[in-house]
Each structure stands twice: as C-alpha cells, then as structure tokens.
C-alpha cells in the first residue's frame, strides 16, 4: 500500500491534484464512508485528498435568505446551528439520522451526497429542499441540483478533478416546512430500507401550494416524485389526498430485493413514510389537520 495524503489549501489546488492523479484518488472530508471502504478493502487508493484546509469549508453562511454549508461541516456542527435547524428541520433530521453520535462528529452532507448511496439519508431531504451543490473543478466553478449528482449506486455525475465545496439550502417562504422519515429495523445505527422527504408550502388557509417529495432506497438513485406532489397540492392533506400521494410514491418505486429489505416491503413502506412525513411537514408549516 502506497497511499499518499495531501492537504491542499485551496479548492483549485485540490481540483488540480485530483485531476492530475493517474491512480485512484478520493476526497477526504469526514471520512465516514471512504475510510470504511478503505478499511474493508472495497477500494485501494493511491491518493487521498483531505479538503478540510480549504477556505470556508467548515463554515455555515447566510446567503440570499438561505444557507451555504461548507463541505466539511459535520453533522454535529450543523445540528447546533439554530438558523439552519429552523429553516430546514427535515434536512437536519435526515442528516442527523446518519450513523452514531460518533459518526455525526465527522460526517458531512457533501460526503453523504458524493458517496452515491441510494440509501443516503440526507440526499432525499436535500432534493426535496431543492438544494444545490457548488462544484469546483479543473475548469472552474459550477452549481448543480443535488438530485442530479448521484447517477447510480456508488457513482456520481462529478467529472475527474471535481469536488463539492458546499451545499446551498435556499430560502423559503413563510408557512413552509419539511420532514424526513426512514425505515430501519433498529432505531439507530442502520441503513434506510426506504425513506421519504417531503417539503411543503402552504397558503394562509392551510392549503398546500407547493410540494416536493423525494424518496430514497427504493431506486438506484434518489427519486423526486412529481406525481405524488400533485396529489397534495391544492389540498389540506386530507385522507384521500394522502392516500393518493402514498400510492403515487409506491408507484414510483424501482427497488431491489436485498439483505435489508424486499421489493414488496420497500414499495409499501415508502408510501407510509411519505404520508407520515407529509403530515409532520404540514404541521411544522402551521397547517392543522
């Protein structure tokens, strides 16, 4: 094993090192995925690039009424940020479900995204929140919708040399909120068998005016289900609307049978989770059912 370790000072330098590496390279931020893979022998690396020295990489900053979250902000730090917690409680609860307290001390949302797991907890929540990732690469900087980054299990749309430097959670109007639920056999320390994130906006009368519903662990990548959103927009989340939404979610599933769950189970449960998450989001947004 001849893995090298680099800790560049700027994003451009990091991108350049990664772009010029002929061997296998990975970015290290929280390390809670990459070090597991390294340790388990799933990957063999020639180079690991620690991005924790980059400017603003550990910062949470206000921007256009939303928040920009650096790629090295840990779950523990993010959860202590009252502003983000108030604005996007569903994203926070999704992210905080990942791993243990110990893992939260290191894990990052950007890492969760770039790991490319279909079961990543924060990704459906970020997709529902319409979050974008800022990417720095050899050719400069670009922004990309979070849901466009994972392309298949373990793979992303990032090109060689590109790194995610921050995640942007946008502003949102009053009477809006989000929620995330996942199913795991244990209460903690588990991987989502199915998950659902729901982000809603309500009018003053409590009618849903906008909704984004994203599902996890039921397809090769996160799935945004517009058909499900349509079922609840214009409603006050009455039982019939929720039932239709739940059915639309189940219909959007393309899951696999594996050691963690069956196709049948994932398909059924994701609808239940979406329904329950929608009710939580609705209540958080000030709606009364």
């Amino acid at each position, binding site marked *: *094993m001849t893995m090298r370790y680099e800790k560049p000072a700027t994003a451009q330098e990091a991108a350049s090192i990664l772009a010029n590496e002929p061997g296998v390279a990975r970015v290290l931020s929280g390390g809670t995925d990459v070090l597991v893979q390294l340790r388990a022998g799933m990957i063999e690396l020639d180079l690991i690039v620690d991005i924790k020295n980059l400017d603003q990489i550990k910062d949470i900053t206000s921007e256009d009424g939303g928040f920009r979250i650096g790629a090295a902000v840990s779950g523990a730090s993010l959860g202590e940020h009252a502003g983000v917690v108030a604005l996007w409680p569903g994203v926070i609860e999704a992210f905080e479900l990942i791993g243990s307290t110990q893992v939260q001390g290191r894990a990052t949302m950007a890492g969760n995204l770039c790991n490319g797991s279909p079961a990543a907890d924060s990704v459906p929540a970020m997709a529902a929140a319409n979050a974008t990732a800022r990417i720095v690469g050899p050719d400069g900087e670009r922004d990309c919708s979070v849901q466009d980054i994972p392309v298949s299990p373990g793979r992303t749309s990032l090109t060689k040399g590109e790194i995610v430097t921050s995640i942007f959670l946008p502003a949102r109007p009053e009477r809006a909120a989000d929620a995330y639920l996942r199913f795991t056999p244990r*209460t903690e320390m588990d991987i989502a068998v199915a998950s659902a994130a729901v982000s809603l906006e309500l009018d003053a009368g409590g009618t849903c005016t906008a909704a984004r519903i994203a599902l996890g662990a039921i397809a090769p990548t996160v799935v945004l289900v517009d058909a499900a959103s349509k079922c609840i927009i214009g409603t006050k989340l009455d039982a019939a609307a929720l039932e239709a939404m739940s059915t639309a979610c189940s219909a959007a599933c393309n899951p696999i049978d594996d050691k963690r769950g069956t196709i049948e189970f994932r398909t059924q449960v994701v609808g239940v989770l979406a329904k329950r998450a929608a009710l939580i989001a609705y209540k958080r947004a000030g709606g009364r059912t």
Partner: protein
Amino acid sequence: MALDSKMNRVFKVVGTRPPRPDGVEKVTGRAMYGADATAPGMLVGRILRSPHAHAIIKSIDVSAAEALKGVKAVVTAADFGVPDDLSIRDVQDNCMAQGKALYHGHAVAAVAANTAAIASQALKLIKVRYEVLPHVTDVDEAMRPGAPIVQEARALENVAAGFSENVTSQCEFGHGDLEVGFAKADKVIERSFTTAATHQGYIEPHACLASMSPDGKGDLWCCTQGQFQVRTLCAEIMGMDASQLRVTASEIGGGFGGKTTVFIEPVALALSRKSGRPVKIVMTRDEVFKATGPTVSSSMDVKIGMTNDGRITAAQAQLRYQGGAFPCGTVEMGAQSAFACYNLDAVHTVGWNVLTNRPKEAAYRAPGAPMAIYAVESVVDELCQELGLDPLNVRLKNASTKGTKSSYGPTFDDIGLRATLEAAKAHPHCSAPLGPNQGRGLSCGFWFNFGGNTCVSLNINTDGTVGITEGNPDIGGSRAAISQMAAEELGVPYDKVRTIIADTNSLGYNDVTDGSRVTFSVGLATIEAARNAIKVMCGRVAKIWGIDEDAVIWEDGCAKPSGANAGDFTPMSIEEIAAISSNTGGPIAGHFEVNADGAGVSFGVHLADVEVDPETGATKILRYTVFQDAGKAVHPDYVEGQMQGGAVQGIGWALNEEYIYGKDGLLQNAGFLDYRVPVASDLPNIETVILEIPNPGHPYGVRGVGETPIVPPLATLSNAVARAIGIRLFELPMSPPKLLKAIRQKG
C-alpha cells in the same frame, strides 16, 4: 459440598454489592485484553480465507508471498500434522482447511510479517486454485438425499435411513404414550418453525499473541473462556507436551460461549514456530462473523395436545439443527430442554444434527435450548389463545416441580419454576393496561447448568489478607463473587481478598468458563479451600494453646476455643495467626480440587409488552421483565446483569439478528451494520426479579444464572407480537418485512 445445614445462615458479604476488583482497570483503559499485548520483535499474522462456500483446494502457491520483503513465515495445512483424535482433527481443520474449503471464510493460509500492511499485501500474493463444488447452507435442504455432501462418512451409527450423508447424528428422548396422550386432548396444534443462526456478538474480536522458542517451549496469550482448553487443543495440534505450552488468558471482552474453542491460536503458534518470532493475530469483525462459531440455525415441528381446562396431555417435537461444516451435539441439548418446563405424561423429542457449508457452530448461552423452547412455548401460547385460557395459569398448571419426571429422564429435585411463575403473576407488569396494537407475551425458559473441573488455591498472606488463584476467565464479574464467598467463609472484609486468574502452569486443569458454572463451581471450590485453610489455622492455634484441634472453632475471622471446656483463651485473629505462621509451621494455604456436580437446573420466566406498527411491521418493546431463580445471588448486581444481558441477546435473536446467506453460499452480512444487535435506543429498561430457591448442591445454595435468560425472549416476543396484532409468525427473526407481509396477507 451439599447445601450447608445451617440453612438460615445470615450472610455478611454474600448478597451485598461491593465494587468489582477489576473495575478501576476497566474504567481507566488499563485492563489488558487479547489485542492489547505486545512482545519485542513481534510480527503481525493475518489469515487468507476461502471466497467460496465449498471448494476443493487444488493447490496453494505461497512462493510470491514468501518472497515479499518483510514476510517472515507463511503456513498452510501442510505445516500441520494429522492428529489421531477426530475431534482434535476437526478443530485443526476448522483453523486451517485441509484439502477442502468447507465454508465462506474458511482459513486456507496465513502469513506473519513485519507490519499489517505487508501481511495484507502478502495475502494477495498467495495463489490458491479452487475447484468450486455445489454447496448447501439450509438445514432442510442439506438433509435431503442428493444434497451436496459437506463431509463424507461422518454419520454416527444411530442415524435412521433415508437422509443425506450430512445428517451426522440422531437423538431421541421422552416417555409415555403419545397416542393415548393426544387422544385425551380437546385441542391439538402442530406447527413448524425456523430460527436463523445468530452470533454471540462479543465486542472483542478474537486475538492472541504466540511465542514459540526453538527449544520447543511455547507461550500463548489470548482472550478465551478457558486457557486450559486452549492449551489442550493447541498442544495436541502442535504436537507439544502440555507442560511446554503455557497459556495465559487475557481479560476477555465477551464470550457467551463463542470463546470456548480455538480459531487462530494454533495458526499463530505455527507462524511463530516457523518464523522464530512472536506473532500476534487479531481477527477483524468480518473474520469474526465468517469464521468463528455462531449458533445453529433450526427447523422444527412441534405438536402439543391440551384439554379445555389447560392440561397438556401430550407433546412431541422434531428438531433439525445445522451446526456448520463439522459435527456437533447441540441438538441433543435442544431435544432434552424442549419440554423441560412441563410435567408431562407423554412426551417425545427427536433431534438431528446436520452438516452445511457454514462455519462450525460454537456454544452460545444455553446452546440448543432457546430455539427448541421458542417453538414449544409458541405452541403452548397458541393453544391458550385457541382455548381462551390465561397463558400464565396454564403454565402454572403444567409446570415442572419437585418430583416431576423431566422430559429428558431424571426426576426433578427442588426447582424454582412454579415460584418464578407465581412471582410473575403477582408482579404489576402482569396486569398493566395495554393500548391498541400492543400485546403482552410470556415464556418460560430452562437450562441445565454445569459444574466441572475446578481448582482453587487460597493463600493466607503474612499480613492476614487473602490471595485466591483460580482458573476461569472472568466474563462478567466472577472475581467479585469469588472474593465475596472467600470473605464470607473466612470472616474477613471483602477488600482483604484479591482473586486472580492463573495461567495454565499455576493451577491444575480447569474446565472452560461455560455452562453457567463459575460462580457455582469456583465458588464451591473457594469455600472448600477456605475451609481447608481454616482447618490449618485452627490446628496451628490449637498447638499454641496446647489444646485439641477439635476444641478450636473459627468465627468472624478468628480462631476461638470451642467453649468453656476447651479453656479460656483470647481469640486469635487471622492477622495474628498469619503473622506468626513462620513459627507455627510455615505458610498457610487452602486448596481444593474437584470435578463439581450438582449445579442445579435453572428456570426463568420473561414478560414483554410490545407495540407493532401495522403499516411497517416494526416491533417496539415497551416493557420487559425477567424473573429468575438464582439459588443465592452472591452479587445481585451481576446476577441482574446476567438476566438483563441474556434477555437483550434473546431480544436481538427474536427481532433482527440473523446470518444471511446468498444463493452463492456467501455470507452477506458479516459486520455490525447489517448483523443488527440491539442498540441502547432499541430497548426499554430491563426489569429484574431475582428469586432465591437454594440449590441443594452448593454450600450457599448458589445456582448458575448466566444462560437461562437467553432462552425465554424468543417466544416471549413472538407471543407478544401474536397477541398485539393477531398474527403469529413461525420463524425468527421477526424482521419487519416478514411481519408486514403477514399483516397484509391477513388483510
């Protein structure tokens, strides 16, 4: 050694909760566990494992690995001999595959190198040519004629015809006329069950440090439940005299039966012999799951008949256990335990052991009993539901008691099942209200408990304090209990006693820490050793006083004249006697060596309330109470700890834990992420109620407590789920996909 006649003895130390002697070391990180030892010049050993479930090893080319810089030794099966004893040969073959890889993860070669990185690199350079064979991992499939044969010619003489060669043994127990019994029943229920293989899940992976010197002497440091057993196995495998191999047990980070044999120790010794250097091997968690000893998986049929008023008239079970790639006897214990809780006129159990392409099972807390009793207690519970009977009253009505002819033959002496059931019945938990989708489950549990070979050396130090040397690794606070019993018997304060665990050269042979035997057997030997020391002290004092030895008695840590007739002497304390021991004949000690019997069977009753989410199949445990007879709880905190820990292992078994094999015969969940042991947030407090029905086989009435508590949770939870949602599952674990499917099928 029977229970002291002074039955109403008032204990001073026994029954209290003093701090454990190894506590400070363990809370400060100083305690030395298996992986914590180092030696000068130490090499790192690593093991290459089969990627196939079943394959002939055509050839192994280690030349490239040997040539790698920093590699000091490579071993394969060719470096080991062929032991005469078949059981030893099995152990050796399990440590290093001989000709055929029998399961995914079976060791095929090992290296010792300067660093872990070099060792890992060397493993990749070993070229093994395999001829992959058809495999079988399911017990029912493995039994069928035509199944892939794991090992040939291993079946015992008593196996009936009609099975595949994988069926290695058959056993049968019971008495009475089943036909007559079932004819008397108003309701007969017959069900089939399966349980998954589970792992003990100790947090400390196996680790050892071996050092062989060129003159043939060896030292081995390892985490084990029995250093003497390790010595026996390793000495035979290595062709050494027992005297030449000293084994020291480190602190042990959990065992639960899984550290009662060897997996890496002979490999480390062989690498050390070949390299001439000390070699440390530490298993990864992946290796622990793949290549140590989980428990058996089972397939079972149970048929029970009951009258309308709840009397069991006949009971019958067939148990099929697979214990991996080598023969084992676990099913015999399951077959004997299955109906032990009940007083039955007609009972019959048949069991078969079956080979599969899985790792050889090792003992796991009450080996064989939890699954059999799960099946039985499920059918008893279903009969109660069908007949509209109270499940606790039905169990009381049928409970084994003193004089019951047990389902495995002998007639029970004093046992605590009825008292335990009565305690459960009287407990507030039993009558607490339940909400929607909630249910309360109940199950009895049983385990034999064992005694076994035990030596204790008790030395009275010159200042009157006490040193105890015993030979059983302390897996859960036994040093505290042993010190307490010595303090009790000698009449000295607890903190004047220090108990240590000896290496194999310092004491005679001690059986493994298993069978819930340590507090019972080592305690018994300690009490007797103390009595021997007391006898010596009284003798010395008698000489000083010039009176008859019988005229000196021992009370409260002092030698006293037995009465006015013996003379008027000031009592001599243990400190005074010890201080002048040089003048009175030399050092004072008490020894005791015994193969202890009379451990006394143990019963427990568990109660659980669960809530099932009908939309997801998730089961949440709301309340859990364990009732168990401890005989005499020497250190109640650690008795409760055994009850709580065992219950939670059983809860994991019932709900989520399982070995998952793919169609390719490979283990899919060899890690703590997907082998789901319960975490703290999954559980409520585990309430405990200790009963003390003295065991007539122990001077203080002690009974083993460690194993029984893993037995009832399986059925307790299954019964609770059945009552919460009106659906009974017949397989474990009751994972949410299975439960949800059943809920939806019911509609």
